[in-house]
């Protein structure tokens, strides 16, 4: 037993040394980078006009590198499918029914949060904000509801829920395919429509993100009423 602990401490010492060496190396590397590096900021600003939004980050996320975002919506949905595929996740043990405070808070905050989400979504076009922030806030609302003991009714946890979950990715892909059918490239918006399309995608995305995150918080798949 003593031997074992000895070995363990020795192992940890060696590990610490190795890792500090790694850290030192990486630190040196980082410091060796030039202090001035424009990166891609010029190109972004140059093309911002044609991107359909004025917030560069949103432009990159949903236009210049929109493909990444598409795949990443995929990752999110995939995580949910994965979690559901695990089957019976033991639900977090039921605490005593939520006290009046939490209940009250939920009632007050949820509408507010939804409002905030909407605002973030809207502002994302020209200032920090956007689909993911909005989605996160929506999710917070959902989590709050779940904590307050609310559960989706079996009528909604079947197909409706699924539809809500896939909307984000679905719309994204649909837009992409539609553009291809219009002889354009994948996700190649014409500058005139770009703003609208991006907004459409973002609305769907934030909705799905919010619900997906909340569903992930819930863990296992909510029980569905049997299909007739």
């Amino acid at each position, binding site marked *: 037993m003593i031997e074992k602990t000895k070995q363990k401490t020795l192992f940890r010492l060696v590990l610490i040394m190795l890792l500090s060496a790694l850290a030192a190396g*990486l630190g040196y590397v980082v410091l060796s980078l030039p202090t001035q590096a424009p990166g891609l900021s010029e190109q972004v600003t140059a093309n911002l006009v044609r991107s359909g939004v004025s917030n560069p980050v949103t432009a990159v996320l949903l236009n210049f590198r929109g493909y990444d975002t598409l795949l990443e919506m995929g990752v999110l949905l995939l995580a949910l499918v994965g979690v559901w595929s695990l089957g019976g996740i033991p639900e977090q043990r039921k605490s005593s029914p939520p006290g009046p405070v939490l209940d009250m808070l939920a009632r007050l905050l949820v509408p507010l949060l939804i409002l905030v989400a909407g605002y973030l979504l809207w502002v994302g076009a020209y200032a920090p904000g956007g689909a993911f922030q909005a989605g996160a806030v929506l999710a917070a609302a959902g989590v709050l509801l779940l904590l307050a003991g609310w559960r989706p009714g079996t009528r909604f946890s079947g197909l409706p829920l699924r539809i809500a979950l896939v909307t984000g990715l679905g719309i994204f892909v649909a837009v992409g395919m539609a553009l291809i059918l219009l002889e354009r*490239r994948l996700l190649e918006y014409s500058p005139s429509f770009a703003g609208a399309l991006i907004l459409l995608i973002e609305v769907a995305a934030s909705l799905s993100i919010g619900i997906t995150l909340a569903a992930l918080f819930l863990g296992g798949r909510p029980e569905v009423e049997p299909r007739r």
Partner: protein
Amino acid sequence: MQDIPWGVLVILLPVIGTLACFLCPWRSVPLGLTTALAVVVCVAGLGWQVVEQGAQRYAIGGWGAPLGIDLYADGLSLLMLMVTAVVGLGISVYSTSYFKPGRSAIFWPLWLFLWAALNALFLSADIFNLYVTLELLGLAAVALVALAGGADALTGAMRYLLVSLLGSLSYLLGVALLYHSFGSVDIAILAQRMEASPTVWAAIGLMSAGLLLKTALFPLHFWLPPAHASAPTPVSALLSALVVKASFYVLLRLWLEIFPLANSALGQLLGLLGVVAVLWGGLLALRQTRLKMLIAYSTVMQLGYLFLAFPLATAIAWQGSLYLLLSHALAKAAMFMAAGNILYFGGHDRIADLDRVAQRLPLTLAAFGLAGVSSMGLPPSGGFIAKWLLLEASVRSGQWWWAIILILGGLMTAAYILKVVGYAFTQAQVTHEAGAVPAPMEWAALALALAAVLLGLFAPWPLALMEIGLPFGVEAER
């Protein structure tokens, strides 16, 4: 026809299929099969396009690198897509009868997601986008492993998930360093701007380490056997055949295009690790008593072969390595399927009790045998061609010691394949009578095994494809 973006369809179709399967699970099998067929068609279309017009570059959103993301399809990526399509089709057919309805409703979305991730990865020309595809791939694979349920599968999946996340993060840090030193994440542009510096070396180190971890090169292979062996059979097949190859593909791209130092000391190191992987994997494969574990360790071994090209770093060597990758993908998928059939049939995969399989599952055993022939590198098979190319490369470059390892590895492989086949011929008393194996499962295995063998008879075509876009820099001089 001329200007249909087949590459994009190859990526988007599986995603659409996933959504469809997710929306109506009770139709998942027909939906999934349709998608699979469609994807195969699109890959064929892309192949036709690449053969006709040479390597293809596709700027998503019309922006083009460095601002946007490009898709790039040359001979290398095309071959990867093709082998994925073939194996994928086989696995799709196999799983129609393998999974009970309830399970298959879960299997299909995950599998199609994984397929989409693979295609996206093979087509991506952007190292950050590659990170996203790697994550997509990793999560899908983990979820699929966990599909088997039970302690082994779940812990295997957990370990696999942690490893894969660690690998991706290490890779991402490398990407960050590269972006911040060269201001782009496009492979081609990086290749132009590349110049050796501490940052670059760190990036190489981090990215290679991450990818090697995902590729399970010795000594980073510890996670592979439990995960691959405990997964449901179709999943084991596609993990061993395709998923580990994906990270190897990324590594190959980086080494060939971005890091022009393939024949440096680092290459020798990789080669050395490959050698150890071959010997160690072979040894452990020989010591296994369970069929699926044996096959999993043989994957560890065969992955070692792939790295013998790095110290040689000649066009022929790369061709050999890639050819081995292709034939191993087919053969290994077939092997796992055959093992799955035996498991399904006898209810166990204890090698010592495999008596009379030869008589009662002839097709399955034939599949296993043919796949084994290819893994041993005996003619006529893809494995043989690959081995020949690697041997030739190593002798030509005067580094004959790699050749010895190749020969030795072949003998070890023969030893453990034989260990299985030999038992399958003996006729001890029937220990366990079981239901017949569905025909699709047997034929899928056999078809893939045959493909692995045929790869040895039609070598000139794949080798010609490899030259498209000169992924290996120069043509193979002969």
